């Protein structure tokens, strides 16, 4: 099945089969948000514990397709123990990898895309194949968007 290997990398399937940091955290002290992809019904619940601007614990719940659930699991593994600044950079870098460039209307119109932050993506790089399947980008970014909501809550 040529083609699909790019989307369903082994590590993505592994995170889908054995999701990391699965569960719930007590709120408060943890912050919590539930993300929904109304198009297809994917759900990701993010519980995140922040102490001194560091994510000290995270738990993921929800249900949905392999990409939404694996991406949330990979995110949880990548950000645990990281500072909020580092998490922000990772989030921007992941979205940039999926061709999502968060620009405001005031941005210059030079047509030059902003440079993504120079950060080590590690396992998260395995989700790069999603960019070829635009419908699935929303699945892959659901966890990250829900994390942002949880952090704002």
């Amino acid at each position, binding site marked *: *099945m040529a*083609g*699909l290997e790019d*989307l*369903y990398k082994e590590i993505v*399937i592994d995170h889908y*089969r054995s999701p990391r940091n699965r569960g719930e955290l007590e709120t408060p002290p943890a912050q919590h948000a539930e993300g929904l992809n109304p*198009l*297809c*019904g*994917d*759900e990701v619940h993010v519980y995140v514990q922040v102490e001194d601007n560091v994510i000290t614990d995270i738990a993921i719940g929800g*249900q*949905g*397709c*392999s*990409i939404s659930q694996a991406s949330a699991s990979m995110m949880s593994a990548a950000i645990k123990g990281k500072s909020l600044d580092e998490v922000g950079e990772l989030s921007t870098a992941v979205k940039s990898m999926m061709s999502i460039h968060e620009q405001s209307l005031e941005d210059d119109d030079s047509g030059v895309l902003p440079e993504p932050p120079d950060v080590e993506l590690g396992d998260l790089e395995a989700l790069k194949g999603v960019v070829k*399947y635009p419908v*699935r980008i929303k*699945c892959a970014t659901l966890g990250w968007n829900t994390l942002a909501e949880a952090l704002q809550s």
Partner: protein
Amino acid sequence: MTDAGQPSLDTAAVRADFPIFDGPVNGRDLIYLDSSGTSQKPRQVLQAMDSFYVEANANVHRGAYYLSDQASRRMESARTKVARFIGASEPEEVIFTKNATEAINLIAASWGRANLQRGDAVVLTVIEHHANIVPWHMLAAERGIELRFIGIGEDGHLDLSNLDTLLDGAKLVSFTAMSNVLGTLPPIARIAEAAHAAGALVAIDACQYVPHLPTRLADLGVDFMAFSGHKMCGPTGVGVLWARREILEAMPPFLGGGGMISNVTLEGFTTAELPHKFEAGTPPIAEIVGLGAAIDYLDGLGMDAVRRHEIELTAYFLRTIKERHGDDVTVHGPSEPSERGGVFSFEYKDVHPHDLSQVLDEHGVNVRAGHHCAKPLMKELGVGATARASLYIYNDESDVDRLVEALDDASDLFSF
């Protein structure tokens, strides 16, 4: 039922009429199994719309000039075709809308606001498409009406055991004529009769019905019917509301503007005669002409033959997928082919429908994955989403075979 000896459809000839099947799509043969989402369009429909723009384009009912008259004639000829196709008493009972969703919103906003007060009940079913739920939620929030729901019973059929209780005090029963998820065909005439006996009017969402079964309004006994053009070989952008004349006459207008008035002064307005009273603004003229051509096309095939073909292929689908995959596959909805439409929501092992749809797409097999705009039904079924394959006039056994074979790949990739 299948009448032995009666020919159903020559699917090869049908496919030849649909240009989208001419060439590869994304480098693959197209196995299109999402006609419940939208049907493909035959050349005859595309040509009718093209020739309208080339030969007869003008606004309708506006000018005394030849071209405007031509445009009006083509549009009204399509209205007559629609009326004949569904067995309406007169073309004036056929209202063109943007889509079926707008048609149902028209019922809720116009008839509903004029006739429903706090405490009145509207009866729906749990298998409805969101288009036949949300407009009533909106009206409930505004008017304090009560919504009641007919449940789902054995084998994907509606549970009508408590129908009389649900109908007590109801002013309207609005339900799908064929489920877009399960293929369920509710007993329309029976429900309509019970509703009328209880003093309620009856509306059906016939989006999946009119394209697939011969539609004879006199036999159905309903008061309102909504359907869309694009699921029956017509273009997007046009839908139909049919209702009995006396009901339409008594209803206030829906959208206001040009075309729907008889007179306008600075003090007020009076409405135009039917059907124009409900058709404010320039209608989707070319699309209406295209819908007329779609009806000619379906009439050419014969709706009895269309239904026979669908029952035959439904039986083949249900048999083949079970033979190949056994208990690994669950197909929702009625098990008897003659009691359902050819739309199959199914689950395969524990592969998520999105992933299933993605793997099938690698084989050129187009199926929809998601909640199919029926989230309450998904909850009833205890699933978040399903994969859905749906059949139409251009599908044949080989399409079913390709789907059934491609499922093996999903198994290889996602077996745990």
